[in-house]
């Protein structure tokens, strides 16, 4: 493993995209930054601009309004990049399956523009913070 890859795994900067979620997942994401879980131990930081990000946390079900925006933000994130699909709505459209404005799960939307894109599923409604840390570890192993 090269030095650059090692550095990458020790410093994941995260940008949070809310694709019209119910805010449940977002509150659980904030838990990760609190003293109990403290993901800054692993170098994970929340940043304010997708240009600085290595990973995108996408919450909520992608609908017709948010799809073009999600794709735009995804394409603005510099490579190498990872997408985390959070919660039941993100990974499978959840209770909105078959709705009139449902544009499909996050991995389908991302793979439309970038078939190589890495999408990590984090199931749960909302996912537990332990599940999120587990997902991050699995994503880093897959890189």
């Amino acid at each position, binding site marked *: 493993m090269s030095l650059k*890859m090692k*550095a990458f795994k*020790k*410093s994941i900067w995260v940008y949070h995209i809310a694709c019209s979620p119910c805010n449940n997942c977002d509150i659980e994401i904030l838990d990760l930054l609190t*003293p109990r879980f403290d993901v*800054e*131990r692993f170098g994970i930081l929340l940043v304010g*601009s997708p240009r600085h990000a290595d990973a995108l946390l996408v919450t909520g079900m992608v609908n017709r309004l948010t799809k073009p925006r999600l794709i735009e933000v995804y394409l603005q994130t510099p490579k*190498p990049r990872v997408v985390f699909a959070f919660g039941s709505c993100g990974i499978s459209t959840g209770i909105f399956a078959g709705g009139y404005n449902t544009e499909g799960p996050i991995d389908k939307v991302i793979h439309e523009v970038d078939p190589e894109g890495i999408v990590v599923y984090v199931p749960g409604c909302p996912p537990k913070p332990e599940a999120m840390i587990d997902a991050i570890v699995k994503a880093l192993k897959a890189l």
Partner: protein
Amino acid sequence: MIIFNYLVFPGFLFAIIIGLLTVWYDRKITARVQWRVGPPWYQGFADILKLFAKETFIPATAKRTGFVLAPFIGFSTALLVAAMLGVAGLYPKMSFTGDIIVLWYLLMIPSIAIIFGSSASGNPISQVGSSREMKLFMSYELPFVIILFSIAAKAHSLSIGGIIEYQRANGANLWSLSGIIGFVVAIISTQAKLGLVPFDIPEAEGELASGIMLEYSGSLLAIFKLMKALLLYTLPLFLITVFLGGMNLQGFGILWFIIEYLLIVFIISLIRNTNPRLRIDQAMNLFWAILTPLAILSGILSYVGL
């Protein structure tokens, strides 16, 4: 020998390593204040290495030359200031008359590079950030330069070496009434120069989405981060040189120097962790209406001899 001094110790390489370690120290203090564990010691190095490995975007609306040039201008000036201060602290005899003015000008250039780069990026939010940076820059330079000149007048010397030798002969500038007032003003100006929390108005993550740095990515962002790390090393060193008698590397002097350095960064970090962000008009008010009269008072007191 002098080339070794400029390139390795206490010049370029030393400044970069200590700067990145200081970034970690600052983040660790932040974490401890919030009862967290905080990042490991190599965090600063990992961040920079990772950013160099990433793709670099240049937005279609940006003015290419200015956008790419700005980080390099800021970084190289910060590097030069760090090396000059280090060498002048090591050999006070070698500094030339007027180098404190040169340093003062060079310390301004990183802020100007940020203004330059963010207004070249073609992003409206970035431009709001750059206009705020410009206003902040105009407000903190005034008290800072008054303090600097009152100290130069006290030491009867316009060189860093002269100021250090005056303090070695007569005791550090900090241990007098004028020195204490001057130190408080200078540390608040330093906070604004570094762009840390009460004065992170141009970066304002909540409202401007990291404003001035918004469009930078990959290696250009890494160079800006390195510049900030270097400033985090340089400005406390500058305060030590001007107020605490510079670095004295004989015997217990080196220990004393390390303690002073860590203490000043600790104060800066505590200010950053215990204060909310000011509005730009409040910041200007603070610098022009409160700190500038204090700086003038400190100058008068030092002229009287207190």
